[in-house]
């Protein structure tokens, strides 16, 4: 007799207890059908033309929540009986307590705050010999209790001694969690800090670099942060929900490129916007989060600072299909026509999204935003993440960065790519920083890199350890919830086979 869904979870020896609890909760969430859905949306889901990222049918919290931790620093938290922290050790403990109470789609906090800013009041403790040990325990505690690679911290754009200590520890400890992003602006961030970050990034695949000049100019009213993979969202807000358009599958319905642009695509964009409306309405009006959570009541988050996210994947395969290009080596990434069409398609989606009046997102101009989603393991090779060039067909570095820089503009709530380098680059941190500076000047939003022989590697947007993937392959448990995604992306999406850029960068 086939096992029930519940039995499959509770008898799976590769799942830790915490992973089983979460899997059971997800199962329960997907049994309810109170949430309204358009039958056409359900049909499109079944056909693989859209995807709900298994967000469930009864969302009881926004997908991504970015608490404003400055309130914790200023006032503490009455619900958690935390007083305003008086020193670095207290702050670290307060944060560790707080993190356990920040929900998200993964049930782990996807944003831990900006460590440079949060720790700044205690900068004078940097020279204290015990400080490094306090921070070491803090980071270790995060890795071993918030066991999910979408847990994300920010540093920068300014330098502090404590930031340097955190980067040193990041390199020493080689942990998958937390993901870290440096908010980087070449005119603001001191060069020493940037070079330090490049060194750590090449050794342990983090921190990534976010184009602070670009993002901060788009967030003049409300500061942003990078959460989860590379999602740029309001601090004190976040993202309600992230369904996805699977552009390749959608393109198979079109007679030709014109039919796609004028008939097929707009239908699916309308459908996804309607679905986002329905989910947001449910989260805000039906579930209790915005009515009773201490995060809302004490001002750590504010409803109107959230927005709906329109996920996009498979740009490359979509345009190749519409242009009848079968060999990816001559398609998107190597073909001006394909790239022009990609630009037109993204412009079209952007136009429809921007014309739609979003719900409960007045501090985002009542708009939902496009997001170049990083892909999930079940996408296989059908849909490359966001607007990326498919794995194995990456053009020379200059062409690659130029293409992406052109398309990143369409994705204000997050897009990014990973560049894999060999030893010749990891020995020349100045050269890597020059590349980042150039790409950011051209409009690239987010850059991340790693050396080919790291253990901690970036899969599509999150970090896993290759050694942990091996554990799962051998039927053992892995403490990190995301190792299983990494394994799937490695096996089905060749995610770890990104081209290695060497000394000739071609």
């Amino acid at each position, binding site marked *: 007799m086939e096992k029930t869904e519940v039995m499959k979870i509770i008898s799976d020896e590769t799942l830790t207890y915490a992973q089983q609890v979460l899997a059971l909760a997800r199962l329960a969430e997907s049994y309810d059908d109170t949430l309204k859905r358009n039958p056409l949306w359900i049909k499109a889901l079944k056909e693989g033309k859209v995807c709900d990222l298994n967000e469930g049918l009864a969302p009881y919290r926004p997908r991504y929540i970015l608490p404003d931790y400055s309130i914790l620093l200023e006032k503490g938290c009455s619900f958690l009986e935390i007083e305003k922290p008086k020193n670095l050790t207290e702050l670290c403990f307060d944060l560790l307590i707080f993190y356990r109470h920040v929900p998200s789609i993964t049930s782990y906090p996807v944003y831990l705050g900006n460590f440079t800013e949060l720790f700044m009041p205690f900068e004078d403790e940097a020279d204290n010999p015990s400080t490094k040990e306090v921070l070491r325990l803090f980071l270790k505690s995060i890795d071993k209790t918030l066991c999910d690679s979408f847990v994300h911290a920010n540093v920068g754009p300014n330098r502090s001694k404590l930031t340097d200590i955190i980067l040193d520890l990041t390199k020493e400890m080689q942990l998958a969690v937390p993901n870290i992003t440096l908010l980087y602006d070449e005119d603001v961030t001191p060069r020493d800090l940037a070079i330090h970050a490049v060194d750590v990034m090449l050794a342990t695949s983090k921190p990534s670099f976010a184009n602070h000049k670009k993002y901060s100019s788009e967030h003049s009213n409300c500061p942003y942060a990078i959460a989860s993979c590379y999602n740029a969202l309001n601090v004190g807000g976040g993202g309600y929900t992230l369904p996805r358009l699977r552009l390749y599958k959608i393109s198979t319905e079109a007679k030709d490129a014109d039919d796609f642009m004028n008939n097929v695509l707009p239908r699916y964009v309308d459908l996804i916007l309607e679905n986002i409306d329905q989910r947001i309405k449910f989260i805000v009006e039906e579930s209790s989060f915005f009515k009773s959570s201490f995060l809302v009541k004490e001002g750590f988050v504010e409803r109107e600072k959230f927005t709906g996210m329109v996920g996009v994947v498979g740009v490359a395969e979509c345009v190749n299909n519409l242009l009848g290009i079968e060999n990816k080596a001559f398609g998107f990434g190597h073909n001006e026509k394909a790239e022009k069409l990609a630009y037109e398609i993204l412009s079209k989606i952007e136009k429809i999204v921007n014309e739609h009046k979003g719900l409960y997102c007045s501090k985002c101009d009542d708009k939902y935003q496009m997001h170049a989603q990083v892909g999930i393991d079940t996408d296989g090779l059908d849909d490359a993440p966001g607007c990326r060039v498919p794995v194995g067909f990456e053009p020379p570095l200059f062409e690659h960065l130029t293409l992406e820089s052109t398309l990143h503009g369409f994705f204000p709530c997050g897009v990014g790519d990973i560049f894999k380098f060999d030893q010749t680059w990891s020995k020349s941190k100045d050269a890597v920083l020059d590349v980042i500076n150039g790409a950011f000047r051209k409009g690239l939003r987010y850059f991340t890199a790693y050396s080919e022989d790291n253990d901690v590697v970036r899969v599509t947007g999150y970090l896993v350890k290759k050694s942990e993937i091996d554990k799962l392959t051998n039927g053992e448990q892995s403490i990190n919830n995301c190792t299983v995604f990494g394994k799937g992306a490695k096996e089905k999406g060749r995610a770890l086979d990104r081209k290695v850029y060497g*000394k000739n960068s071609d």
Partner: protein
Amino acid sequence: MEKIPINRLIDFSPVDGTGNRFAIFVQKCPFRCLYCHNPETINECSACGVCVEACPKGALKKESGAIIYDESKCVGCDTCLRVCPNLSSPKTRYMSVEEIESRITRVRPFIRGITVSGGECALYPSFLEELFIRVKRMGLTCLIDSNGAKPFKDLEYLVDLCDGVMLDVKAYDDDFHRKLTSKSNAVVIENLDYLLSKNKLEEVRTVILPKYDDQNRNTVDNVSRIIGNKSRYKLIRYRYYGVREEGLKEFGKVIVDESYAQALAELARKNGCVDVVIS
């Protein structure tokens, strides 16, 4: 408008000087180094046509005494380079300053400068002057990568114009230098002193060889005394990749140990060389 033979242009190079640089490899070199890892840059193409027959993709043809290369058919297998009896390449193109400038303009936001290498770029001083004047206008730096075969004191304008020279000193002992390169090192050593006096020595490089401990020590010892803390000294471990048969016969199919190079770096540091790197 002068055109010079170009072996290769590289948009992004992390290994030709500090930072990310556009690298230009010119064709032709007066030395015949046994361990040269890009021997196809040594001579100009004599249009003998051996490569035309060997190319598996039909990317080469001979027309009115010249080899015509069709880049769109090339798969980069390098068969043409392997069969060339003349230490050359059929892919070499004659290019003008304007053509190279437009390639640099494309990648400009990503680079901090250009490096002209080879072959031996000092064979084309007037071309380099024109190129550097234009590149400097873009706010980029210009480095020369040279084996020191040509006396820089005769190229003072170029030296003043450039931001620095990365100079190979392959051997301090003249006889050994002749054995390695087929030429004397008198001009090389003269260049070392001259560039130091002009404060234009960006880097000195010595290839650390297997089986020649005395020569390695002699070169590193003397060069490091001369440059002291005024220049970076890069010790390049011999690697067999790309080395032609006669070089392999002399030095073997080996890679020099990092620990051995470290010991030589230590010697250089003892002599007052602050910035010693191993590659």
